[in-house]
């Protein structure tokens, strides 16, 4: 970790820029809204910068930041949003998604996999994620009920996940 107790603006900015995307992404993965993720990322870095200096590797810093961010996220609820017994599953899910680069590669693969979805699923994804239409609206266009749209989107995500995993395996 950079020596931050000298607190130069450049060192702070370099540290934040090095890790912010991964921390932000991990919060979104947990279910935080974009706005909440922004705020919690800020608080997380402030916590790091206020804390006594500890020399950590970049990977350890990233893990520390994600853990603190996750704790902040949990504390923002009256009741924990997930059981502590789920933590292993959460961590495994995140590691599977993020890999070694915080998820950049997965996003590239996801973009390619989107093209491979069947037309109906791709349309549902486009209407939901790109045009941000409601399930009712999407359902009206695709001739489905709201539950049908929900199932269609879930199947589309499962197909995308399978496609990403297949790509990773083939490359390995």
């Amino acid at each position, binding site marked *: 970790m950079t020596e931050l107790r000298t*607190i130069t*603006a450049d060192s*702070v*900015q370099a540290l*934040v*820029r090095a890790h*912010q*995307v991964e921390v*932000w*992404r991990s919060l*979104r*993965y*947990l*279910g935080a809204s*974009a706005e*909440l*993720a*922004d*705020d*919690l*990322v*800020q*608080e997380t*870095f*402030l916590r790091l*910068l206020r804390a006594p200096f500890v020399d950590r590797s970049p990977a350890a810093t990233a893990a520390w930041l994600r853990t603190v961010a996750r704790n*902040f*996220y949990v*504390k*923002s609820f*009256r009741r924990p949003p997930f059981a502590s017994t*789920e933590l292993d*599953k*959460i961590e*495994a*899910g*995140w590691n*599977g*998604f993020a890999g070694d680069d915080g*998820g950049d590669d*997965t*996003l590239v693969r*996801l*973009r390619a996999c*989107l093209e491979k979805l069947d037309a109906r699923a791709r349309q549902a*994804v486009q209407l939901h*994620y*790109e*045009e*941000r*239409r409601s399930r*009712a609206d999407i359902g009206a266009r695709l001739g489905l009920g709201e539950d049908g749209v929900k199932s269609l989107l*879930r199947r589309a*995500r*499962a197909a*995308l*996940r*399978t496609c*990403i995993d297949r790509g990773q395996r083939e490359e390995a």
Partner: protein
Amino acid sequence: MNDWDDRAIDAALHELHGSKAPDLSARVLLALQEEQPAPLPTLASTPRRLPWLRVAAVLLVAVLVGLGAALLLVHRSSPQPVVQEVAIAIEVLAGEVACDGASVDVDTAPPAKVVQRATAGSTIAFVAGRGRRIWCPRPSTFRLGTFGVITVVRDSELEVKDMEISKVQGVVMASSLTLAVVAGVITWQSLTRSEAAATGDVVTMSAGGAPPAALVAENAELRRRVDELERQNRELSLDRERQPVSDQASTPATTVEAPPAPAASSMAFSDPRFADALAKIDWATMGAVTHEMTPVLAELVEAMTKEDAELPVDLAIKVQQLNSKLLEQVPALLAAEVPGFGANGSYTHPLVVANTLASTLQAAGQPMTSTQHQRLAGLVNAFSAEAQSIADSAHEVALDQLLAETEMKDRFFTEMGVALTPEQTKTIHPGGPSGYDGASLCDTGVTMRAHMQPIEAKNPADFAGSVTRTLSQELGLDEATEQKVRDIITRGTAADELWRDPAAAAELSQAHFLRAGRTKTALRHQVQWMRMIRQQVQLTPEQLKKLGKMSRVLVPLPR
């Protein structure tokens, strides 16, 4: 695939379609530099004691829109925390500000209401809650948390009518404030928006960034203007009826008399209708500040045009500080009732621009020659008449006025530029045209910037979806009407000129410096699709009124 795998793909799809991680480094840096050495206050989830108030010892003073922090106080009256009041930092930049505060003795219930006062250079905590007030015994400028900079005339008084509160990990923050102007005139300025309001008006401010919906404030301001224009129309009609035809033909719409020679600290160009009020403006300061701010603004915009550029915090703060000085003069402009669409419309009125130009050139040591002065006086005369005519006309939708004004002022700025020497032009536009609205104080980008609301979108349908959702919330549309509105907007924004230029780095940046001409093009199309909605969609009178008074230009930013 388990639920967490599903969530990962869901989040990734959102990110792929626009919900991307912002660069928070400047925000973290500012928070780090400005926070006091005290812990952030938090709400305990199940308090045994019920203190009425908890005042934060920390005041994180906002420096820049979207980058500062505001803080806070919590007010609870039952076991379920009910937040009714929030403390917001007031940093007094000029003059004197008094406000309702509270004792910092956190466990007294109920707290004694105390009055806090501060003069330039100091900061106080305003306890914002319904009915709480801020008042200024003399002309003042202050920064209100992350809401922006407010400038007021003497004896102005503001009262909180409403506010929205958001809570992040127990920290309570005001996300929007609705203030009524009980007395006086105020202007509110953030890096991306500005509003003006007079006694009886209501202004809604949003914390940080561009506000999602300031329609209430805009409605109130426009309502006042429409009433005033209707009154002026009635008077002008009566005058015309009384006047012989020959007199009407020979009387110019506006008489602008140029003084024999421009003076450094007084008005170089005048108009009998506004002379008294405009004489109260400190033109020497206007010139000096404009001269100092112009290259800084150009540098700021230039910096933001680079790929992956970060907001240069020092420059942005400098711009804000200088802008605050300009804003101190705005109440006099509003009091003079110089016609214009909003505060920036008055600021870019030909008469005001010409005077600002004269004093800026004076400050730069390049005063106008008498020939230039004469030429400018003629331009001011002609374009002031046109400005008055636009302001006096009836407009089906309020943005009609902005469009007509912008087209007129574009011509004025072009003509004005011809009258200047190359050296003078360089003083006004250092580095030449930047190609971005807001990079110069001497073009219509200043007005455009005050009213634009950029919306990132991939295509007309995407844009229409976002706009319709906003309109639906603000107008209260049912599903069937919403669909009709969406279709009209999709068709109304299909023109290639809106989509051919992908959003540039500066446009996507926190400061949203949009390409010159983009907002104007969007405005032209928006006026059209708003008219189509009014004609083709069955709206209630209240919905029609709200739509007609809308003053935001919704600008598609092609992704």
